[in-house]
């Protein structure tokens, strides 16, 4: 056999390995990042169109004073659904979809780290959206605003708000999952040589965004759960008569809500940081400053939430702390804006459609940023808060700062997404319609607000002198709509009928332009090696230290789908990631969860049992298939050098488990913060006495520590004969300790005499113990996976790494238990 035929055979095997099913089967089984990314973007775009139509209805109603086109009920439903749709069902999912598609291409990976979890997230999002919109079928459309302030949203008159809470919670869970996915990919799946100083801005941004989502979306999931409990079980979190506090909702909502704004804006800015260099043929200027800008934006965005609460009557000094933070964040945006301008200055700009959107973005976003500084001032904000001035401000920031970049990005990467070319002429027409329409709609709104029109009013009297400006806004809205129609038709037509695209139409600088458009199933037959910040403009690195990774991942490995894993800072290859093929398992649990939600909404509880069973079967089948098939014989030619199952941070599983553990701790900490907040604001706390069962609680703590320690002890994979016994013993001890802890938590929960409807202290303790029950089940499931991995595989490394992950999760459960205990028993003694 000559080397040539070997090479050809290898290439053929490799291609076969990466071939996917087509047609309908693909729709339900494909889990690769490009398929999931497209699904996200198409679904989100449909929601965008729906949200846009809702806005048009509102603008018609507001076209003239005292209009009776819509009644207040319909209008309130429309603005609730418009906000919720654009925020939760369009902006975040669309950007996640784009990131899903582009990130692996930009960082040189063959897929995202957990493709099946990724597909699972998409289905959760889709089903969440369907649940929210099914409220139209029952004429129970949510109508208390996208911010759902209590007590308005708490009073139980019908199920309308339950559609909102359950639907959006599913969508948020999906967002958190996607964030973990993207963060792990960016940290450890970058191409060899792509050290932090060579990472594309989009990757830096999505890393920052993932961090924000993990820290900020969990509080909203917790808040939604608490509100749902208030509505159904009658807990007291938001009921001021028994120790609750309506402001708690606002704190939790805006701890989510403000980072959310930057979750939308930062990817927009990142798209511009890619469009501007490519279309002016110049490297992005002052790259380190842009990195600082987006990192500090991500951090500071966590400290702005009170500026949505400047009118609730907080002390001046409290508000001023947050004014300081809101003002500081401006500098970060300033750096980015001037980085783009200088890049354009140094480069040779070309007026392509993406460039037009980028320029439109800069002028619009700067205006929105300036009004942002204005509303950061407490004194001024108290005047314009909840007026059309704010409506104008955030549409400048969101349409200008997020939608324009999305359109820029769509036109920039359209060839890569579809392999087709759109009509330039139609693209330019659409841009001008949208740009002019936008300013015609939203610029007058500054004045509408300054002249005294509050938000969320279904009509206004003539005496305010805002008739003309409102009419202008309505006209503008229809111009935007016309532009969006042209854009949609142009892109949709080109996707099916367009001329074939060339691979690299703009001579772009980032890595994705070095593969074909659209990329093949595996993205790169040979994994790229990166030697600069602009890899598409520079020669590939021939550094000899990357010889092995180059050889192994050139049309290989051929036994299993794989991509290299690199170190987080310097991006040196040190292991490999095994990637799954098509599977239908990830769609099963979301459908089950959807059925559970439907059961709660229809109060037809048999359905909940069916849904729960379905979810369990789904997760079980997923786990079973994960520990079988090719995984049983995981010995590709590369395994010696680039291991799939290295311990510690040299495997994606470690990162996944660590992030999951972090989300659990953030969740329980949010509950603890809520309890402490209620405590300091309530005149008495606890209302009678604390749970106060130190023996029981101490015992649970010890058991959880034992489960952690036992799992940690089982994380070795030496080749000795005793290894398997060691694993089994560790599983037995961890399982027994965990099960005992679960049983005792349930005992503590049910026998401590807590009535969640009595007062806020009991509500908090009750919910903390309930959460701990769920966490113990999570820990036990992890130990169950270790057992499955041990029984299904001969080799020791699989059980060893799974045991390590179980230890991480049990550790988080133990930490959560300590937080719970401190909150229920120690804080009431220590704090007045």
């Amino acid at each position, binding site marked *: 056999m000559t080397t040539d035929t070997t090479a050809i055979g290898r290439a053929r095997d490799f291609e076969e390995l990466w071939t996917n099913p087509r047609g309908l089967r693909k729709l339900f089984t494909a889990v690769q990042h490009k398929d999931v990314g497209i699904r996200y973007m198409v679904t989100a775009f449909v929601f965008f169109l729906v949200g846009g139509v809702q806005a048009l209805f509102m603008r018609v109603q507001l076209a003239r004073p005292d209009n009776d086109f819509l009644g207040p009920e319909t209008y309130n439903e429309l603005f609730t659904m418009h906000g919720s749709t654009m925020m939760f069902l369009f902006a975040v999912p669309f950007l996640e979809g784009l990131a899903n598609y582009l990130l692996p291409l930009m960082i040189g990976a063959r897929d995202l780290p957990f493709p099946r979890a990724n597909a699972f997230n998409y289905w959760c999002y889709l089903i969440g959206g369907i649940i929210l919109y099914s409220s139209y079928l029952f004429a129970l459309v949510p109508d208390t605003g996208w911010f759902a302030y209590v007590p308005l949203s708490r*009073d139980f008159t019908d199920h309308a708000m339950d559609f909102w809470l359950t639907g959006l919670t599913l969508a948020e869970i999906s967002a958190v999952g996607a964030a973990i996915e993207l963060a792990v990919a960016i940290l450890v799946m970058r191409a060899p040589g792509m050290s932090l100083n060579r990472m594309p801005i989009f990757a830096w941004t999505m890393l920052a965004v993932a961090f924000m989502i993990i820290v900020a979306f969990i509080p909203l999931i917790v808040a939604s759960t608490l509100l749902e409990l208030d509505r159904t079980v009658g807990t007291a979190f938001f009921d001021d008569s028994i120790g609750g506090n309506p402001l708690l909702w606002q704190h939790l909502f805006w701890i989510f809500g403000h980072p959310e704004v930057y979750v939308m804006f930062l990817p927009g800015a990142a798209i511009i940081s890619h469009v501007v260099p490519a279309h002016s043929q110049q490297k992005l200027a002052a790259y380190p400053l842009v990195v600082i800008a987006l990192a500090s934006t991500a951090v500071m965005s966590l400290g702005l939430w009170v500026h949505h609460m400047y*009118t609730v009557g907080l002390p001046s000094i409290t508000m001023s702390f947050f004014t300081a933070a809101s003002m500081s964040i401006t500098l970060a945006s300033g750096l980015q804006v001037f980085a783009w301008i200088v890049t354009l200055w140094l*480069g040779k*700009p070309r007026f392509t459609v993406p460039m037009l959107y980028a320029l439109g973005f800069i002028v619009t976003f700067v205006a929105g940023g300036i009004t942002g500084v204005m509303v950061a001032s407490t*004194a001024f904000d*108290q005047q314009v808060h909840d007026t059309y001035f704010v409506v104008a401000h955030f549409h400048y920031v969101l349409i200008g700062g997020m939608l324009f970049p999305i359109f820029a990005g769509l036109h920039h990467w359209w060839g890569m997404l579809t392999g087709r070319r759109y009509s330039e002429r139609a693209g330019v027409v659409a841009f001008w319609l949208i740009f002019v329409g936008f300013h015609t709609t939203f610029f007058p709104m500054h004045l509408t607000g300054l*002249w*005294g029109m509050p938000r969320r009013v279904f009509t206004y009297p003539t005496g305010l002198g805002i008739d003309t400006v409102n009419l202008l806004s309505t006209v503008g809205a229809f111009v935007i709509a016309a532009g969006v129609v042209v854009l949609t038709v142009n892109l949709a037509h080109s996707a099916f009928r367009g001329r074939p695209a060339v691979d690299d139409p703009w001579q772009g600088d980032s890595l994705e332009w070095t593969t074909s458009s659209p990329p093949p199933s595996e993205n790169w037959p040979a994994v790229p090696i990166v030697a600069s910040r602009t890899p598409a403009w520079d020669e590939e690195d021939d550094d000899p230290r990357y010889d092995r990774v180059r050889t192994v991942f050139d049309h290989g490995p051929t036994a299993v789908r794989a991509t290299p894993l690199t170190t987080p800072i310097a991006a040196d290859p040190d292991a490999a990631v095994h990637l799954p093929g098509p599977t239908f398992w990830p769609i099963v649990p979301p459908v089950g969860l959807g059925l559970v939600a439907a059961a709660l909404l229809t109060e037809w509880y048999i359905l909940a049992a069916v849904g729960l069973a379905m979810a369990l079967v789904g997760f079980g089948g997923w786990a079973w298939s994960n520990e079988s098939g090719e995984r049983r014989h995981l010995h590709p030619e590369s395994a010696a050098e680039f291991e799939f199952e290295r311990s510690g941070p040299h495997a994606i599983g470690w990162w996944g488990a660590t992030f999951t553990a972090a989300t659990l701790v953030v969740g329980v900490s949010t509950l603890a913060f809520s309890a402490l907040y209620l405590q300091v604001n309530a005149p008495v706390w606890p209302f009678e006495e604390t749970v106060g069962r130190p023996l029981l609680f101490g015992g649970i703590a010890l058991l959880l520590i034992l489960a952690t320690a036992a799992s940690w002890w089982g994380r070795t994979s030496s080749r000795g004969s005793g290894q398997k016994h060691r694993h089994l013993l560790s599983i037995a001890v961890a399982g027994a300790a965990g099960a005992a802890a679960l049983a005792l938590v349930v005992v503590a929960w049910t026998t401590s005499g807590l009535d969640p409807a009595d007062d806020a202290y009991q509500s908090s303790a009750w919910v903390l113990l309930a959460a701990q029950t769920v966490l113990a089940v999570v820990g036990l499931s992890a130990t169950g996976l270790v057992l499955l991995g041990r029984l299904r595989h001969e080799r020791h490394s699989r059980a060893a790494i799974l045991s390590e992950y179980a230890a991480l999760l049990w550790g988080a459960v133990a930490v959560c238990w300590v937080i719970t205990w401190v909150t229920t028993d120690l804080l009431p003694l220590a704090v007045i």
Partner: protein
Amino acid sequence: MRTATRATAAWFFVVGGALLLGGCTVDPNEQQSILAPRGERAEAVDGLWQLMLVLGTAVWVIVTAALIVAVLRRRRKDDQDHSSRGPDDPDPADGRRPFWLIAAAGALVPAVVIALLTAVSATVLRDIDPEQETDGPVVEVIAHQYWWEVHYPDYEVTTANEIHIPTGVKVRLELGSADVIHSFWVPELSGKVDTIPGRTNALWLSTDEPGTYWGQCAEFCGLDHALMRMLVISHSPAEFDGWIAAQQEPAPRLLEANPTESVERGQQIFMSSSCVYCHTIEGTAAQGEVGPDLTHIASRETLAAGILPNDRGNLAGWILDPQSIKPGNQMPGTDLDGEDLQYLLDYLESLE
């Protein structure tokens, strides 16, 4: 493409000009404009706004001008340069000059402006601190879906949807809510403060000149959020005392002063109907607490929380069918016959 660029530039100037003009001009119909401040708090904020408007406009113009120059300097035609990849010069973008330029223009200069604005904003906020000592009367305002209940605890006066204050002093408002969160906002006098169940927020108002100022609920509070307005009426101190004295009169004394048959019939109709379950008329058996106090309803300028002028026709329409005027409010319609309705109106109109 060239025309498109020019259109871009033109558009920028249109928007910029509109921004400037918009800040300076005031619509003659204004009823509750932030730009026409009449009270100490609103005036302080207006000064801050003008400073920020000037600075903000300058920043926008500078950035946009820089952008236009940057874009037009070396722009490429569509059909050329397709072959070249990357910058001609190796890495001017990584040089030190762009770096420091961006650091200066993007962060250092803005840092100075921002620090200044933060300091000015903090000073204004301190000057208008809502918990300051006040020298005028205290008014309790309780927001309801969808109207405002107003008490003067010092004078034992209760009214609705109208807050009368004397000029020249700081009047302390204590704001509460009976149901959901509302927000008290009279733009010409002050920024807004929310009314939150379980919590009392404070605010002070001061006016130099007598006048009438419109306000409106500014936090979404349910179906009729848009139809929840109110009036602040400031009087000279002497007039204010007169108003208080008039409001302190219980209703029967009014009746004694002007006893006509139709008014007495009207009172009987009121007392024998469901009105009494929700409304109070001081000095009579009507002591309901769900709706507004009607003891001096005829003295008020508006009906239904600032959405109808208070005249006989509107009052009749409101009594017969409040749900079509303000859907979802708590008041049910009544089916009085024409004669009874006229008596009832006579009675209510006598309650000055």
